[in-house]
């Protein structure tokens, strides 16, 4: 395992929820991102994956646990945060929303440099970032406006805006889910090539297991504020241990399909996290009797937090041991 550039240790983030009940959006997560590593953080809407990634970026202050940057705890002073946000950049889902329609490509990419009072050659830095993001020759794009670009080109501009500050880490929140099929592969290939050429570390937040299979070294599956399964992508997706991961995999639309396991029951609610295993009210293994032997533990016994670093592990009383 290479040294970790960004790490969550026992992170908890609690918001004030509806009716005053606290919502435990992130409820004890260990996760580390090694140098040059691509990790996919997978889960459904509301599982806490976006809150976790915002906490890793220093945009959200954890109510428990700590964020480690290259092994040192992140400080929350204005100067330390500014420095951290330079080395860890965020790429969002919808490039059309992320770009100001009245700003040229050059201005969009240069903005980060200006915020961080870059004192080098701005023009050269912008051109370099655009070229790395695959917009070549970069000068041809300087004066273009977002509406003159295709969806894929816009996402490349957003990525160039992240690259221009030469970050160590990019956190990409659903980087391809709003893009057309043919563009999707191009953007994923770009992310892979940035790891090769720049040694970037990448945390890809997605609900799309296909994205993880395409580019991630490791995958962490999140459910209701916790990571419930994690490990090398090939192991987790070829031989998932956790019933939740199995259900997620079964609904990936493909043809020769296994019978989809459609989860029923109420959508998970972070203001009322079930006791024991938090997945137990919706767990197919518990419902069909496969987990009878451990059912008491499932309903009542808290699971330990997964280490979030190396091998394949699952937080499940039935299959995790």
């Amino acid at each position, binding site marked *: 395992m290479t040294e970790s550039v960004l790490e969550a240790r026992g992170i908890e983030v609690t918001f004030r929820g509806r009716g005053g009940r606290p919502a435990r959006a992130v409820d004890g997560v260990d996760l580390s991102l090694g140098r040059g590593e691509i990790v996919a953080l997978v889960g*459904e*809407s509301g599982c806490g994956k976006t809150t976790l990634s915002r906490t890793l970026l220093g945009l959200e202050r954890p109510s428990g646990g700590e964020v480690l940057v290259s092994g040192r705890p992140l400080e929350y002073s204005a100067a330390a945060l500014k420095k951290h946000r330079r080395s860890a950049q965020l790429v969002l889902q919808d490039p059309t929303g992320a770009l100001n329609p009245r700003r040229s490509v050059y201005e969009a990419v240069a903005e980060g440099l200006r915020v961080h009072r870059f004192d080098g050659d701005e023009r050269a830095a912008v051109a370099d970032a655009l070229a790395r993001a695959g917009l070549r020759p970069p000068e041809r794009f300087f004066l273009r406006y977002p509406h003159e670009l*295709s*969806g*894929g*080109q816009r996402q490349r501009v957003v990525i160039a805006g992240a690259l221009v500050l030469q970050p160590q880490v990019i956190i990409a929140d659903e980087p391809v889910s709003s893009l*057309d*099929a*043919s*563009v*999707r*592969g*191009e*953007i*994923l*290939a770009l992310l*892979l090539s940035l790891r090769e050429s720049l040694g970037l570390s990448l945390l890809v937040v997605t*609900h*799309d*297991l*296909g994205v993880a*299979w*395409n*580019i991630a070294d490791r995958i962490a599956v999140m459910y209701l504020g916790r990571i419930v399964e994690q490990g090398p*992508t*090939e192991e987790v*997706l*070829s031989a998932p241990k956790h019933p939740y991961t199995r*259900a*997620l*995999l079964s*609904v*990936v*639309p*493909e*043809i020769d*399909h296994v019978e*989809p396991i*459609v*989860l029923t029951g109420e*959508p998970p609610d972070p203001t009322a996290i079930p006791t024991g295993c938090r997945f137990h009210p919706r767990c197919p293994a518990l419902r069909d009797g496969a987990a009878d032997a451990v059912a008491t533990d499932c309903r009542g016994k808290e699971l330990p937090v997964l280490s979030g670093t190396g091998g394949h592990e699952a937080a499940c009383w039935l299959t995790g041991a």
Partner: protein
Amino acid sequence: MAVLELEDVSVTYRSAEGAVPAVRGVSLSVDAGRSLGLAGESGSGKTSVTSTVLRLLPKSATVTGRVLLEGEDVLTMKWGRLRAVRWATASVVFQGAMHALNPVQRVGHQIAEPIRLHEKSVSEPTARKRVGELLEQVGLPSRVAQSYPHQLSGGQKQRVMIAMALACGPKLIVADEPTTALDVMVQQQVLGVLADRVQDLGLAMVFISHDLSVLASACDDLAVMYAGQVVEQGPSDQVFDDAHHPYSRALGGAYPRIGDLRFRYAPSGLPGDPPFPGEAPSGCAFHPRCPQAREVCATTDVELRPSGERRWSSCLFAPEVGT
């Protein structure tokens, strides 16, 4: 019998830069109890095609060809007849339609609205009862009728929209990216609801998406559009797994088969961008991006030809079928 039949339909938009042909000679048909997936990238014309079905296009659009709904040409219908046909014969579920729900009205009231408009004689208790049944058909408890939109999740709202589309017992449902904004689990639920309706009620469905893998798993047949034309058509599984057009192959390849090591660290894309409507290249419109293009592709006009049992492709190098 075909519920919907498009014959050589073209859609041209007038714009400041002149006429923009968005759809160029599309012919399709969907039978009762069958679903047709319409695939293509942004700007390929798929939404323009389906908007002709209920004449939902803006005034700047000119439509030619014939759009037959249960044998009756929609394009020549009088306004009153068209109003009667909307909702009652064919209805549409749009992408992000859930945002169209009125936030200050209970969803039950909103589902009942088309019923009240189309069946003036219907009594309030009957309408309420039908709303409850419709909600159950889409897998929601009937008490959801009492909810306001903000109390529902995205998937629940999308199912409310489907219930509304089913309210007047249409023969055809057009679903335009109905699951694009939804999570995989919710997507599976919504797709299941639609597939069940097609089967149980013998509905015809046209399903639009840019995601070939979703279409392949949800529909019987697929039509793939590029630059305003259908370039391949056939049974879903065959088009997805063994495409007869390089463009369909690229679209299918964009979604990895999880577990297949060929896709590990090898996302497959298609270089270049689709042409702007109205700027389609000569010959085969796909030739500038086609990995298999030869010189002849730029100069020869192509059209959809049979390429197998119930299969059609416009690629010059698709399998030949003796006539």
